[in-house]
């Protein structure tokens, strides 16, 4: 057995005799298990509930009676954001975004009924999920059990003896690291099993499950490195403990809270209120379809008349009101999308700002990696909203086309006439299906932060080697 392995085994024996370490580990394992089971159960019930609501909304849309197509434009449709299976591992922003999107003509609505507005402030303490356990609590446990790894040997004088016996400082440090990362591996086990199960049962793609597993292995390895490194630098175990706790509080608790506030202050977001007013203003400025002399819409009329080779809108083979509705929706949607894109871009700039600080706190890199792989970050939410908007646009324009083709202009402009088309039309619209990003998309997004995490690991490995060498020199 090599020296390193012997040191590791010795450290393990001590760890298993330490009541704090063992009870801490058991508590962590138990809670991770609770978190995994709860997350899975919650995910399953929420998925079922949303699928049920979506089916209900689809049914309500398809079973509408005979109606004027424009009534249906206002009746609209509901979309419910489907849950990603890996959200059971890291729900990310899911509790903070709305899940119910109402689609209607002339408007882009917000996704509503998110958990955050339906909960007491208890939610703001965080959520007990596998990701939370591993991101926040597992490092704390590693600090508790590992802070004295080298410092203890120094305090009790055994370090000098070991070195005198010809054990290299590097070997001591490596042995301690081996022991602590083995311990971390134990803490990680239930989460890894859960990931493997999610992938093996076909609920989540293997590459993403592996990416998540790799990210968290890297994260706990990083902490093991940090703990042993700090432990080898301090004369007393107590000082190492305090230094590590301070580092943990700053890296894991303080910075992830403080930096978002900076980003919010630096890149302010416009309120929904003012965006709505601006959009209306710009829309009014484009033209007024009710005004016969309006330049934009009279040019549009001329183009239509020319295309069909007729003199008057009454002679058109299609309903001119329907064409106007199509043109109006096209213009307003362009506007909406411009504002929505500007807003999304601002949010992305904010997030990129926070991401830049991943060089300062690896916790930020891990969080980004984890949410991207689990499909629960802002980019995924944006994807849902954009697909919802595309669906809304197709739906509304489809209805406007029905108005143009199925109704007669003269009838449609007669206020005393009921204009309805058959309810069979409502069933011809396809249902909404969210398309998740491809694995390579996710990998592409995860790559930069993955590199940051690797850099952190590399830096600490180098520091560790230096510390090992120094340990040997100092004692001689």
């Amino acid at each position: 057995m090599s020296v390193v392995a012997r040191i590791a085994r010795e450290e393990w024996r001590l760890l298993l005799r330490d009541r704090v370490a063992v009870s801490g580990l058991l508590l962590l394992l138990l809670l991770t298990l609770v978190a995994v089971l709860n997350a899975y159960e919650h995910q399953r019930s929420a998925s079922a509930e949303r699928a049920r609501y979506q089916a209900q909304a689809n049914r309500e849309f398809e079973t509408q009676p005979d109606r004027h197509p424009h009534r249906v434009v206002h009746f609209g449709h509901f979309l419910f954001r489907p849950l990603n299976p890996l959200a059971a591992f890291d729900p990310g922003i899911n509790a903070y975004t709305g899940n119910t999107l109402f689609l209607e003509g002339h408007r882009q609505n917000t996704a509503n009924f998110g958990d955050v507005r339906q909960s007491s402030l208890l939610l703001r303490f965080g959520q007990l999920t596998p990701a939370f356990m591993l991101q926040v609590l597992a490092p704390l446990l590693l600090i508790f059990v590992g802070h004295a790894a080298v410092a203890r040997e120094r305090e009790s004088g055994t370090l000098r003896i070991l070195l005198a016996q010809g054990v290299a400082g590097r070997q001591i440090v490596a042995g301690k690291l081996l022991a602590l990362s083995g311990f971390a591996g134990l803490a990680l086990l239930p989460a890894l099993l859960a990931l493997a199960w999610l992938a093996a049962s076909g609920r989540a793609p293997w590459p993403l499950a592996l990416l998540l597993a790799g990210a968290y292995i890297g994260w706990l390895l990083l902490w093991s490195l940090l703990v042993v490194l700090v432990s080898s630098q301090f004369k007393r175990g107590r000082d190492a403990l305090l230094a590590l706790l301070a580092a943990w509080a700053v890296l894991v608790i303080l910075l992830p809270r403080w930096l978002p506030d900076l980003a919010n202050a630096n890149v302010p977001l416009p309120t929904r209120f003012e965006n709505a007013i601006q959009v209306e203003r710009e829309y009014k400025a484009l033209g007024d379809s009710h005004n016969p002399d309006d330049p934009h819409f009279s040019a549009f009329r001329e183009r239509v008349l020319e295309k069909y080779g007729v003199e008057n809108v009454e002679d058109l083979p299609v309903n001119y009101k329907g064409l106007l509705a199509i043109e109006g929706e096209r213009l307003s949607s362009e506007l909406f999308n411009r504002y929505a894109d500007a807003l999304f871009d601002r949010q992305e700039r904010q997030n990129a700002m926070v991401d830049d600080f991943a060089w300062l706190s690896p916790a930020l890199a891990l969080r980004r990696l984890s949410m991207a792989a689990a499909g629960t970050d802002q980019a995924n939410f944006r994807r849902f909203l954009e697909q919802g908007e595309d669906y809304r646009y197709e739906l509304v324009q489809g209805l406007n086309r029905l108005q143009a083709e199925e109704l007669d202009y003269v009838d449609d402009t007669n206020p005393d006439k009921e204009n309805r088309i058959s309810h069979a039309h409502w069933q011809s619209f396809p249902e909404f299906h969210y398309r998740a990003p491809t694995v390579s998309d996710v990998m592409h997004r995860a790559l930069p932060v993955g590199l940051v995490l690797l850099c952190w690991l590399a830096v600490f490995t180098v520091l560790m080697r230096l510390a090992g060498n120094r340990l040997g020199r100092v004692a001689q």
Partner: protein
Amino acid sequence: MKGFSNELRLILRSRLSTSALLLLLVLAALAVWSGLDQVAHQRQTIDRLAVLHQQDVAAVADRYADSADAGSPAYYTFYNTWDPPSDTAFMALGLRDVAPYVLRIRALGLQAQLYDGETFNPELALPGRFDFAFVLIYLAPLFAIALLHDLVSAERQSGRLRLLLSMPGGSRLWRRRAALRYGLLFACLALPLLAGALISGTAPLAIAIALVISASYLAFWVGLSLLIAARGWSSVANANATVLMGSWALLTLLLPTLANIVLSRAIPVHQGVDLMLAQREAVHGAWEVPREETMRRFFESHPEWRDTAPLPDGFHWKWYFAFHQVGDESVAEQVRAYRAGLEARQQWTERLGWLLPGVGAQAVIHRVADTDLPAQLAYRDRIEAFHREMRDFYYGYLFTDRAFGSKGFASQPTFTPRSREPVSFGYQEAATLLLSWLVFLFGIGRLGALKPNGKARPAGRAGAALQGATADAAL
């Protein structure tokens, strides 16, 4: 007094203590400043939007200046509502970053407008805000632990413990040391808070409650630290720190999140989505229902318009607004159930606060700041009341077929923000404090019971120490 100043000099000479205290002071000041900044930003936004809104209203009034009936004005005119931050909001920003504090509504069905969200960045909201409540609830305990966990063991390590304990009035010395550290920590929290209150013009009672809560929550952690630190002769500094940090993680990270799981499962609130779906069906189904039927249902809740002119043959706006009203009324039951669910969640959180000091302090400080779920619901109530006023105003024109015109626009109702009840110190707050001060007293008592012979207490884990302390206090 001399003892105190000597102790103070001792504390200030320790690099760890002074840097910890300074850091806490800086963090608390930063948090208060950031809170004030946020509140100022919210006020500016409200003012900016008021101007924008005025221009919007003027444009609508201009467009429909000679409108014969009130229908189009009622349909196209938006009203702005807002919920200004309280003068205590800087302490705890609460839900104001994820829930709208400005909302534009019009006289159509309210239930389709009331739950609209505000634009915010969910990734930034996820970790929570950096405000005074965060510094108090998460960070202050860490500083208390750092300053107190080795109160006894440091003396033993330096070999002074036996001497200190055998001195007459030895227990007074420990109390003085503990009280001084507590006082310094509290000052680091209280001074920035007081400065913030002064700047924002906070009512004295509100700031007093916030201070009492801060003092109590800090007392809990100081008490707990003393309990652990005084675990007899065998107490070791890093074991103490481990037990205390473990308790901190348990009380502020683990148990609240566990409770949140239980709470959200026990009290589901899917009625929100239900009412949204049902309201849409009711409103749009009205086009298929005989118009007289809709009017009959409308008159049931609005008998004052029963004897007005019957509906003409063609379209009439009063029917249009009547079915929106009936649509809202048809989901009244779900609205009540939804609200009851939200209130139950809040209530159980407050009850949980009697056992978990962090949750209790969080609840009270957000109540004082008026930024919690009840505050959000109160804003919703205010919008609802204003919406009623708005509807009644238009009904007065629509059901009497009075011309609207620019006169109508001039007499439109105007929104006034909700009035705040002055904060009060009720049993909820008292219950939250009770546990904290008990722990504090036990901690002090335990410290006084240290014996020079070293046999006072067998070494034990946190639980054993707690029991021991309880026994001490009982004696």
